[in-house]
C-alpha cells in the first residue's frame, strides 16, 4: 500500500487540468493514473481545430490543447502512470490499479479526483433493427482508427446523430476521400455546435436530415445500406412511406455520450439521474468524503475549455480537502432543475460557507429563443440574463458570487430555470 495525497483517475483534459491546478495550489504529492499509453485522453484523436478559445484565446487542435497541460505536468514533475487501469476504488479512497510494470498496486489517497471521461452510446442502446454486420462504428471509434491508426473504416458513409463527433467525422471522412451521404438526426435540432454544422456539413453540401432516423440495417456480412425514415416530431415514431435507402458501407453513430461512472459507483458515490454523473456540491466533492469529480465523467460538456475550468476547481479543492481547509457549514442546499433546464451541476451548494464563486452549468431542454436564464434562491430571483438562443447542444454557464446568496436569508433550495 502506497500513500498519496491526491490520486487523479484519468489523464485526459480533466485529469491533466486537475493535476496542474492541485500542483499550483501547493500539492506536491499527486499521482495521475491513465489507462491509455499516453496522456491526453480523447484530445489525442481530436486533430481538428476549435479548442482553447476560452482558456487560451487561440484556436488549437486537440493534441496542441492537451500539450499545454502535459508540458506543465512534465515541467512540474507530477508523477503519472500510463497503461494503468484502475480496477477498484472504495469510499475510504483506497485505489487499486494494474499495469505491466508494477502489477497490482494499492494506493491509499487522501483525496481522489475522478476524471474518467465518457463513452459513446452504441447501436445496441438504440435498438436499431436489422443485421448485425460489420461497418457500424461509433464516430469516436472511427475517429481513432483514422486519426491515430491511419486506417479508413469505409468508403461510403452515413452518419446517425448530429453530435459534435459525428459532425467532425463527416468532415474528416470527406477530407480523407470517403463519400459522406448524409447526417441523420432524430431530433428537430442538432445537438452539435453551430460552427460544426456550418464547417463540417454545409461546407461540403452534406445534408442534415432533422426528424429522421435509421429504421433498418442492410447487409448480412458488411454493411450494404441503411434505410432512413422521417419521424413524427412528437412521438419520434417513423412515418410509413418516408423510407429512403442510402447505399453505404459504413454507419457512424454519434447519438450521445454517457459519463463512464463504473468506478464512481464502486466508490459508493451517489449518481444523478439527470446527468448520469456524480452528484457534487460547489467544490465538486461527491457524496463520498474527499472524492471529487470533474469533466465528462461528471456531466457531458460541449467544450473542452469548460472541462479544464471545472477540473481546475476540482484539483484545487481536492488539495484544500487534503490540507483540511474545506469549511462547509450547514447542510447542503439542493439546486433544482426548473423549467427548461436539465442536469444542473452542482446539485448542492453551501451558501453560508461558500467563499468562491459558484458556476452553475446546465443544458437547456429544448431550443428557446429570446429566453431568460434565471436563478432563484429562497423564492427570490437572485440572477437573470437574457439569451437570444438556448439549445441543448450548448451548455449554459452561470457564475454567481457568494455574496449574491448571502443577501437572501434562509435559503432552502435554489432553482435554475429558463423563462421563455
Amino acid at each position, binding site marked *: 500500500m502506497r500513500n498519496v495525497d491526491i490520486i487523479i483517475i484519468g489523464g485526459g483534459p480533466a485529469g491533466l487540468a486537475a493535476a496542474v491546478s492541485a500542483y499550483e495550489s501547493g500539492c506536491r504529492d499527486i499521482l495521475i493514473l491513465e489507462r491509455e499509453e499516453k496522456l491526453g485522453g480523447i484530445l489525442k484523436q481530436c486533430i481538428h481545430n476549435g479548442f482553447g478559445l476560452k482558456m487560451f484565446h487561440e484556436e488549437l487542435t486537440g493534441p496542441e490543447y492537451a500539450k499545454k497541460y502535459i508540458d506543465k505536468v512534465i515541467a512540474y514533475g507530477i508523477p503519472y502512470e500510463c497503461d494503468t487501469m484502475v480496477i477498484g476504488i472504495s469510499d475510504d479512497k483506497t485505489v487499486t490499479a*494494474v499495469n505491466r510494470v508494477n*502489477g497490482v498496486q494499492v494506493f491509499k489517497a487522501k483525496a481522489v479526483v475522478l476524471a474518467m471521461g465518457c463513452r459513446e452510446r452504441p447501436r445496441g442502446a438504440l435498438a436499431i433493427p436489422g443485421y448485425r454486420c460489420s461497418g457500424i462504428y461509433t464516430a469516436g*471509434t472511427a475517429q481513432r482508427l483514422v486519426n491515430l491508426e491511419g486506417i479508413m473504416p469505409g468508403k461510403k458513409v452515413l452518419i446517425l446523430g448530429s453530435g459534435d463527433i459525428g459532425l467532425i467525422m463527416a468532415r474528416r471522412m470527406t477530407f480523407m476521400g470517403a463519400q459522406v451521404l448524409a447526417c441523420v438526426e432524430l431530433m428537430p435540432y442538432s445537438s452539435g455546435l453551430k460552427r460544426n454544422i456550418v464547417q463540417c456539413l454545409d461546407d461540403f453540401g452534406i445534408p442534415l436530415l432533422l426528424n429522421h432516423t435509421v429504421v433498418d440495417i442492410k447487409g448480412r456480412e458488411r454493411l450494404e445500406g441503411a434505410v432512413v425514415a422521417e419521424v413524427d416530431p412528437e412521438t419520434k415514431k417513423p412515418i410509413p412511406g418516408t423510407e429512403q435507402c442510402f447505399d453505404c458501407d459504413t454507419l457512424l453513430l454519434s447519438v450521445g455520450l454517457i459519463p463512464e461512472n463504473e468506478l464512481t459507483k464502486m466508490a459508493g458515490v451517489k449518481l444523478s439521474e439527470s446527468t448520469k454523473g456524480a452528484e457534487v456540491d460547489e467544490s465538486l466533492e461527491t457524496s463520498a468524503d474527499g472524492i471529487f469529480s470533474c469533466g465528462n465523467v461528471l456531466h457531458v460538456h460541449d467544450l473542452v475549455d469548460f472541462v479544464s475550468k471545472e477540473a481546475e476547481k476540482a484539483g484545487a479543492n481536492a488539495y484544500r480537502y487534503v490540507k483540511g481547509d474545506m469549511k462547509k457549514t450547514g447542510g447542503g442546499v439542493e439546486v433544482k432543475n426548473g423549467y427548461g433546464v436539465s442536469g444542473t451541476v452542482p446539485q448542492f451548494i453551501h451558501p453560508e460557507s461558500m467563499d468562491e464563486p459558484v458556476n452553475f452549468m446546465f443544458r437547456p431542454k429544448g431550443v428557446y429563443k429570446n429566453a431568460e436564464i434565471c436563478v432563484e434562491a429562497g423564492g427570490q430571483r437572485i440572477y437573470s440574463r437574457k439569451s437570444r438562443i438556448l439549445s441543448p447542444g450548448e451548455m449554459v454557464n452561470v457564475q454567481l458570487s457568494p455574496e449574491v446568496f448571502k443577501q437572501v436569508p434562509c435559503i432552502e433550495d435554489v432553482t435554475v430555470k429558463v423563462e421563455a
Partner: protein
Amino acid sequence: MFDVIIIGGGVIGCTTARNLARYDLNVALLEKASDICEGQSKANTAIVHGGYDAKPHTLKAKYNVTGNGMFDKVCSELDVPLKWNTSLVAAFSESGIPKLEELKHQGEVNGVHGLSIIGRDEIIRREPNISRSVCAALLVTNGGIVCPYELTIANAENAAENGVRFYRNAPVTKVEKDGGQWRVQSGAGTFTSRAVINCAGLYSDVINNMVSENKFHIKPRRGEYYIIDKSYAGTFNASIFQLPTKMGKGILVTPTVDGTLLVGPTAEDIDDRDDTRTTSGGLAKALKFGSATWEHIPMRDVITTFAGIRAHCDRDDFVIGEAQDAPLFFNAGGVESPGLTSSPAIGEYLADSAAEKLGAKAKKNFNPIRKSIPKFREMTDRERAQAIASDQDYAKIVCRCETVTEAEIRASIRRPVGARTIDGIKRRTRTGMGRCQAGFCTPATIKILCEELGISPLEVTKFGGESKMLDRYLFDKGGGNHA
C-alpha cells in the same frame, strides 16, 4: 479418410465431436462459417430447461430430461459456468392456473421431479420485481442457465485436445455414397469417411435430404431478444416464462450467467434461414410481452438486441439417429429448443451409436477435462498479481466494460479451435460484449488478432466472409513526396 465426419459446429456437433473423441476414431468436424458456434447455438435463451414443456413421448421430452441430468458433470468437466437458478412459469390471470396444472402433469409424465405450483405471495417473495399482476406459477427446481457459446466452444476445445480435426469455412455442398464410404464435398475440400453425422442445425434438412428419401424440412422460426445491462443483475433470480403458446415457450425474462438479463424471444416463421435481422415489429413485441413479467423494462439500459433462428422441423420433433435408408448416416435434425439442454444427451447418443456401428473401442487416454481461460474479472487481487507475474499481458485491460485482459484475448486465439475473428474473440472472452459494445476495444482487439495471426488489419473480419472491419490504409507505403 476419416472414420466420422460431423457436419456442423454448433453445440450438437461440438458435443458429438467430444463424445466421439472418447473412442479410437479418426474424426473431423466441418463448419460452414468462419467459426464454430455461429448459428443457433450463439443466439438463444441460454436456459437449461426442466423438461415440463415438451409433449410426452417425444424425442424432445426424452433428450431434454436426460440432457438436463447431465449438465452438472459436463459443465464441471469442461469448466463452463452453470447456475441452477430455477425456472418459473408464471400465470398472470386466474384462467392460466389450469394450464399450469397441465404443464406440471406433463412434466411429471416426462419424468421431471420437483415441480410444484406456487402462489402469488411465494412468487413475490422469490421475485420481488415481478409484475404484481402475477397469480400463480409453476416452480421448476431443475431449471438452470448456462453460457451457450462457452459450452459449445468448451466441447470443441476438448474434442480438439483429444484429436478431433476441425475445419472451418467448410460449407458442405454434397454428401454422397461412394462404394463403402461417404464422400463429402466442402468449401475446405473433399473428404471421405465411413460415417457422417449431420448436425447442420438450420440446414440439417438440406444435408439429410441429399442422402435420404426420408425427407424432412426446416421451417425457420426467428426469435428476437433484448440484452439488459448487468447493472440490473439480481433483478430476477429465476428464469421467468409465461404460459407457452403454439409457437413456443413465449417471451421470458431471465438472468444470464454473465449477469445481464435477456428479454425474448418472439416467434416468427420466416422463409430465409439466414435472416437474422432484428425488426422494429419484433422488438416492439418482445418489449410488450416482456413487460407483462417485468413492468418497467429499462430501455435506456438495453445494451444490444439480437435475433436467433430456430431450426423448427415440419415433424414437430427432433430427428435423431441413423437414417433408415442410409446406413452410417446419422441425423441430429430439427434441433431447436430444448436443443441446448438436450445437447449432452444427443451428442452422447450419436457418438455411441456411430462408434458401436463402426466397432470402435474406447480411447484409453481420453482426457475429459478442459479448463477455461482464467478470467481476470473473477480473480482476487492476489490471484491477479500472480497472473500478471506469470504473464504481463494480464496487466493490460483491453475491454473495460467486461474487464478482459490482453492475455485472455491472446489465449482465445492460441487455443485449439481458436478465435479467428472479432466475434470469435468476443464469444470466447466477452470482449466487446459489455455496455460500450466494443467502442473502445475494437482497435486494440484488431491489433492483437493481427499480431497473433500475422495478418493485416485489412484482413480482419467480424465473422468471416465479407464482414471486413476496415477498408484501407490512409497512405499506401511509399506514397508521398518527402517534405
